[in-house]
């Protein structure tokens, strides 16, 4: 009779729980949702433990399962094709309206950020970035997450989110403009300058 090696699942949680959770929450922005997906991931890992042959580290294996769960989540969320008109969305975007004047010039335009890479060493900066992503309208946030955080190809993002090339272009454009604006106001040039909390 085959002897099944018992996995110490408590150890799994202690060693990997927070990392998986951190990974999930950056992509989902919602604690409850992130907790659910982490739980699903561990359960799937438990059921599929025979497929883990030690070809990668345990954590890499678990993150792989988590990524699948996240993709399933996105596909389900965006299964219904969006009927919004991308060009109209762009026009209706109040943040965008403030950025350019009638002639299409910056109003007032990006401020100097100095040496932005220096910010990467500051823990607080990552929180601000994560917060700024979360503040995006949900579809824009998800598009940005899939394309930039997960580095999926434009085609893959379109498939998962069930949108056209035009839609994707507009959404990423809006996401980047919003994000840039948010980071400028909350980090590089805003009242909450790094160091002053």
């Amino acid at each position, binding site marked *: 009779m085959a002897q099944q090696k018992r996995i110490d699942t408590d150890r799994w949680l202690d060693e990997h729980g927070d990392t998986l959770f951190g990974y999930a929450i950056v992509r989902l922005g919602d604690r409850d949702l992130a907790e659910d997906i982490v739980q699903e991931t561990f359960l799937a890992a438990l059921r599929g433990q025979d497929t883990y042959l030690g070809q990668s580290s345990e954590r890499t294996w678990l993150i792989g399962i988590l990524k699948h769960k996240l993709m399933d989540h996105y596909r389900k969320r965006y299964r219904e094709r969006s009927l919004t008109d991308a060009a109209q969305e762009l026009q209706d975007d109040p943040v965008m309206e403030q950025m350019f004047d009638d002639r299409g010039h*910056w109003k007032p335009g990006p401020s100097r950020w100095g040496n932005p890479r220096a910010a990467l060493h500051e823990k607080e900066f*990552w929180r601000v*970035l994560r917060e700024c992503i979360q503040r995006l309208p949900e579809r824009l946030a998800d598009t940005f997450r899939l394309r*930039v955080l997960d580095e999926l190809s434009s085609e893959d993002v379109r498939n998962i989110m069930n949108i056209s090339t035009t839609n994707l272009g507009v959404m990423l454009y809006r996401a980047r403009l919003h994000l*840039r604006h948010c980071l400028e106001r909350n980090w590089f040039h805003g009242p909450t300058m790094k160091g002053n909390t």
Partner: protein
Amino acid sequence: MLACKKASRLICDALDRDLTRRERIALRFHLCICNMCRRFRKQARFLQEIGVELEEAVEKGVLQDRLSPEARERIKEALRQGES
């Protein structure tokens, strides 16, 4: 002649697809004479890079997101049930 609004769109598009030759030329010309858009391009590229680096920050635990004790226990319990 491109206006900045259109240029900013092309700058973003260039991060996800190849621009057409016409678009490339128009954008290059605009960037020669517009420092605002040059600045914007630097910042847009920075945003692209840090997206990737956020990944690493997460894996290194820089953000210190933690499961709540309740969630941790709940999941542990679910796994114990799953094992039996």
